[in-house]
């Protein structure tokens, strides 16, 4: 294995070993997505029973929205919390004096984000299929592109959160849990962008997630794949990720200048 990949694996191994020894952490991964699916699944079933076919369609878009939003949320939290684990264990000092490059640190955090997201979202997808007969995979191969975009958006936001933690220390920790919820109202998760007031729509269209959810609704309700939305999501993600990487690079350097890397857990 090349040294670069070995260093990335080393950091991922550290987190996987932690999960092997901590069942509450494992439980936490799937707990919230499954709970969400229970609540919204029964809501969707109720709508379908009361409204018939329109309710069925509304329920399907609701469940699709819940599951895909969890992909973004779990990806973001998976990355942010893996970084916070290093702060909580006061281990950052050892990591930053090892030959691990910042880009490798990010790669390892992304790797953990993917694992954590799959461990959280897959049980919810299976639950939706088993309890409510909602099969997300009927969207077909385009689902992979939806997932990819949502994960990239989650990583961009997480990188921003990590940057703020580097800058402001553990005081910025709550952002790891809450920051993405601030984007949810503009991401058109459960309703189309057209519902939003016109002055909010440019904000909404600047979010990659909006284009994924518009695309999801088009696929579920009209059976069409909106390549224009997918392309917009990829382009916006590239911009968001580049911006987040720039911010991380700046904040990492600033932390090395200010000494924040030494006292980050305090």
């Amino acid at each position, binding site marked *: 294995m090349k040294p670069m990949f070995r260093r990335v694996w080393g950091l991922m191994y550290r987190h996987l070993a*932690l999960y092997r*020894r901590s069942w509450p952490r494992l439980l936490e991964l799937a707990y919230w997505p499954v709970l969400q699916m229970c609540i919204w699944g029964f809501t969707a079933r109720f709508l379908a029973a009361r409204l018939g076919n329109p309710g069925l369609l509304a329920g399907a878009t609701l469940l699709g929205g819940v599951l895909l939003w969890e992909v973004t949320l779990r990806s973001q939290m998976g990355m942010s919390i893996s970084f916070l684990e290093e702060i909580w264990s006061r*281990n950052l000092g050892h990591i*930053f004096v090892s030959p691990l490059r910042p880009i490798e640190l990010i790669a390892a955090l992304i790797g953990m984000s993917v694992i954590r997201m799959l461990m959280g979202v897959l049980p919810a997808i299976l639950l939706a299929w088993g309890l409510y007969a909602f099969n997300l995979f009927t969207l077909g191969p385009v689902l992979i592109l939806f997932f990819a975009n949502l994960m990239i958006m989650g990583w961009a936001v997480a990188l921003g959160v990590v940057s703020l933690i580097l800058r402001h220390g553990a005081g910025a920790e709550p952002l790891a849990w809450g920051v993405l919820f601030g984007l949810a109202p503009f991401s058109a998760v459960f309703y189309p962008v057209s519902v939003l007031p016109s002055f909010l729509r440019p904000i909404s269209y600047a979010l990659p997630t909006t284009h994924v959810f518009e695309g999801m609704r088009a696929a579920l309700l009209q059976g069409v794949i909106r390549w224009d939305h997918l392309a917009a999501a990829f382009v916006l993600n590239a911009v968001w990720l580049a911006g987040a990487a720039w911010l991380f690079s700046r904040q990492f350097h600033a932390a090395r200048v200010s000494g924040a890397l030494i006292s980050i857990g305090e």
Partner: protein
Amino acid sequence: MNAIQVENLTKRYRDVLAVDDISFVAPAGATVGLLGGNGAGKTTTIAMLLGLLVPTSGRITVLGHDMAKDRFAALARMNFSSPYVALPSRLTVRQNMRVYGHLYDVPCMDERIAALARELDLGEILDRPAGQLSAGQKTRVALAKALINRPAVLLLDEPTASLDPDTGDLVRTWLEQYRADSGCTILLASHNMAEVERLCSHVIMLKSGQVVDRGSPKDLLDRYGRHDLEDVFLDIARDRRHAAAA
């Protein structure tokens, strides 16, 4: 050849001058002590040597690598131990060693871990979580982590703090042996003057961010007319140099 070369190193945090234009070298294979009271600039200097902190000005070269431009090449051949930086407490000792074995790209990692476990008497605690160890065991584990990559430069920040005299002596003996066997350069920050006298061939005295004196322990004892380094330390800390020399 010098393993560590520090030239006109300065670190300023806004109004605080933590390190003020210091220069020193650590010859390859030597153990150099970095001494000074609290706030003298030892930890800041070590942090800059490790690349954790960017100097305001000055230059650091470790193993021929300029730390401002090429720090990762040097970091692969360095390591660090401090009782104030923990290892993940839920991971076992073996898992922690494996993490750092990967990070430092250690070949034949399992054999290396087994060898360190033998040498530092870690056999019985290898599969125990790091958080459940005693202070002495933690120190030995931290040392094993610091030696996982057979470093050519080892930075130790108070390596025997919080150890009982017996364990402290074992660690010091082991460090002497390791340096003699490997030719490793050790930079040691410590408040234990007996330890410094025993391990270090050269001592750098820091006060208020400046190098106020330097030399071998014997040179310093002679210069200050003292019998142990602790008195020299106190003379410097309390500005009693001239009185002591007189």
